[in-house]
């Protein structure tokens, strides 16, 4: 296989990471909502933690984008 083709294939495969991160981000908000509906009184105080979890899950997906960008543009 030509190196150029392999690079582009790798970049495409990196997009799988974005999909997996979407599962993670969905999980974060789903679990938060689940807990928040059971105990609405405690929900507002936990919003900071919600976004920490969101930031962690999202960063790993964004890294997939970085990998793809590196493969294409380097």
């Amino acid at each position: 296989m030509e190196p150029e083709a392999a690079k582009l294939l790798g970049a495409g495969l990196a997009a799988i990471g974005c999909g997996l991160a979407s599962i993670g981000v969905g999980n974060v908000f789903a679990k938060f909502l689940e807990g928040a509906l059971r105990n609405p009184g405690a929900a507002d105080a936990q919003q900071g933690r919600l976004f920490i979890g969101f930031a962690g899950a999202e960063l790993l997906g964004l890294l997939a984008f970085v990998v793809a960008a590196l493969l294409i543009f380097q």
Partner: protein
Amino acid sequence: MAAEPAKVDPMHQFTIEPLFGSANWELAGYNIAFTNSALWMAISALVLWVFMLGGMRRQLVPGRWQMAVESFTGFIEDMLAANVGPAGRKYVPYIFTLFMFILFANMLGLLPLGVVGVHAFTFTSHFTVTGVLAVLSFAIVLIVGFARHGLHFFSLFLPHGTPWWMAPIIAPIELISFMVRPFSLGLRLFVAMMAGHVLLEVLSSFVISGGNAGIGYGIFIGIPSLALMVGICALEILVAGIQAYVFALLTSLYINDAENLH
């Protein structure tokens, strides 16, 4: 010869170019041209300044504008009080500046000014800019940590209650997770903004190419792409807010580590 199909280069929007013939300005051997990036930084600082000036009239019964500014300051103050505690009050100016600057930059970059020929430039989509902001936050964490706790600050790398035989494993992991913070902080903002703008550009190229390819393509590709673009624009506004919030939130968490250890 058939006309070349018009190509939209999704990366072109991130080109930095010198403005006002300043391409050759130099200072000590370095080029200090006034670029479009610098221009939009100045614009967002100016807009932020006007926004704050309008809201700082200190009326007893606040008007709408003052209410808007006060809700932002109150929001940051609450965030620091919740995450850092009483020691967090002195960081309100820094976190507030950071949050508002990033928020205004993200929002200004999304303005559809291209319609009137002005091309808004999102400088937060460049790692140099977000990296400097992240290093600034990281430097504050280091300075505060070492000034308050001295060498005791290194106990950050060994959480309380770690069994002694786990220490050789835990300490390097904690060290790496600490050192990687500025990168993750800058990378998150930069990639989120850049990915969103590339996505919008790619969708717009679908609309243009679809429209050029014929009426059928225009209806079945162009119109759905345009509808998706409107939706993605709304998502981008959300992302602009969330990324500014996450940057400020994580900075305040790191400051909490420096202030109170853990």
